[in-house]
């Protein structure tokens, strides 16, 4: 049986502090995996030395000449995996929130029959690891309910970026991937495109460096409003395409 090729996409924006630890633990995890794991850091227009730090650590680096946000950076990684003939891609955030030790659980789900197209790592399926602040959990619960109402998808952690993308998901997101706060909207797109989505419990960590773009009441409210509208519009867009 051929060895499965996995591309670990590490979208990073000003993550020079956290990146060495992320790559070191990714290498550790890769040594224990039965798959061929390759890592690529997508430097999302960083103003610090994220790209050069990543290069010195010996991983592939794709440098975006301007900041596109997590969605634009992630799409580059997924496109790379799709065009490069990888069997799947996994998102590992450059801020150290996604422990690579959990990769084995996520990728192993792709081997079950029938194989899912998208595996979402959930912080809430098991009570372990960092589970975010109460306010954020409230927002996550809202998106979860909205997903259920809009496209009958039951997911407990729709904002989790710790995901494994199978070949069909790679093909879909190579063509189209939300640019701004993409996680919940990407689930809508995947579900309405007939992809099989499953959740796998994972333990996540607190961010190891840098700072979140969603902080404070204003930016959090904007985030919830923007994502809600985007999810509703994504459903409308899909229905229009069907017609």
């Amino acid at each position: 049986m051929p060895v499965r090729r996995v591309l670990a996409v590490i979208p990073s924006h000003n993550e020079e502090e956290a990146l060495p630890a992320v790559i070191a633990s990714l290498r550790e995890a890769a040594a224990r995996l039965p798959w061929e794991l390759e890592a690529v850091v997508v430097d999302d227009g960083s103003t610090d030395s994220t790209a050069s730090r990543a290069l010195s650590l010996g991983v592939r680096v794709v440098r975006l000449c301007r900041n596109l946000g997590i969605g634009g950076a992630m799409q580059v990684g997924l496109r790379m995996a799709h065009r490069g003939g990888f069997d799947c891609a996994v998102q590992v955030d450059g801020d150290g929130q996604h422990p690579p030790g959990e990769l084995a659980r996520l990728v192993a789900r792709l081997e079950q029959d029938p194989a899912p197209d998208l595996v979402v790592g959930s912080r809430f399926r098991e009570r372990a690891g960092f589970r975010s602040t109460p306010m954020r959990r409230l927002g996550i619960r809202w998106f979860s309910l909205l997903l259920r109402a809009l496209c009958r998808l039951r997911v407990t952690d729709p904002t989790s970026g710790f995901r494994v993308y199978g070949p069909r998901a790679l093909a879909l997101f190579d063509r189209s991937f939300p640019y701004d706060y993409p996680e919940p909207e990407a689930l809508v797109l995947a579900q309405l495109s007939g992809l099989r989505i499953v959740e796998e419990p994972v333990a996540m960590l607190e961010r190891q460096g840098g700072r979140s773009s969603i902080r404070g009441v204003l930016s959090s409210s904007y985030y919830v409003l923007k994502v809600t509208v985007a999810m509703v519009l994504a459903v409308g867009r899909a229905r229009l395409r069907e017609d």
Partner: protein
Amino acid sequence: MQQFFERYWVFGGTCLLFALVTLRLIIRERVTLQGTLAFLLLLFGMGLASLFPQADAWIATRMGFTLVSNWFFALCIAALSFLHLLALISISRVELRSIALTQELALLQEKLERALPAVGERP
């Protein structure tokens, strides 16, 4: 006519200055003619409307407005909304193209950087 110029020369002069600045921007290619055409047409229309006040009053009455000033007010809001929408469409299109180009450029750059040392073109 002389009374008209005496009363409105400040306003007319400002409009003329504004038109000249816009034309200069187009000639120096700071803004594209394609993007400014709707704006210029609107200015031309407003200019015509200011030259023929009787026609404005007739249109305002036909449209159900009691005062011509209200008609102009509504017209200006509609025109500005339309221009803003055109600008939004144009900016969004440019933004999406810019994102796609940034992504493709980054992928090609990475491919090139990996390929060059392999063929001995880079130390």
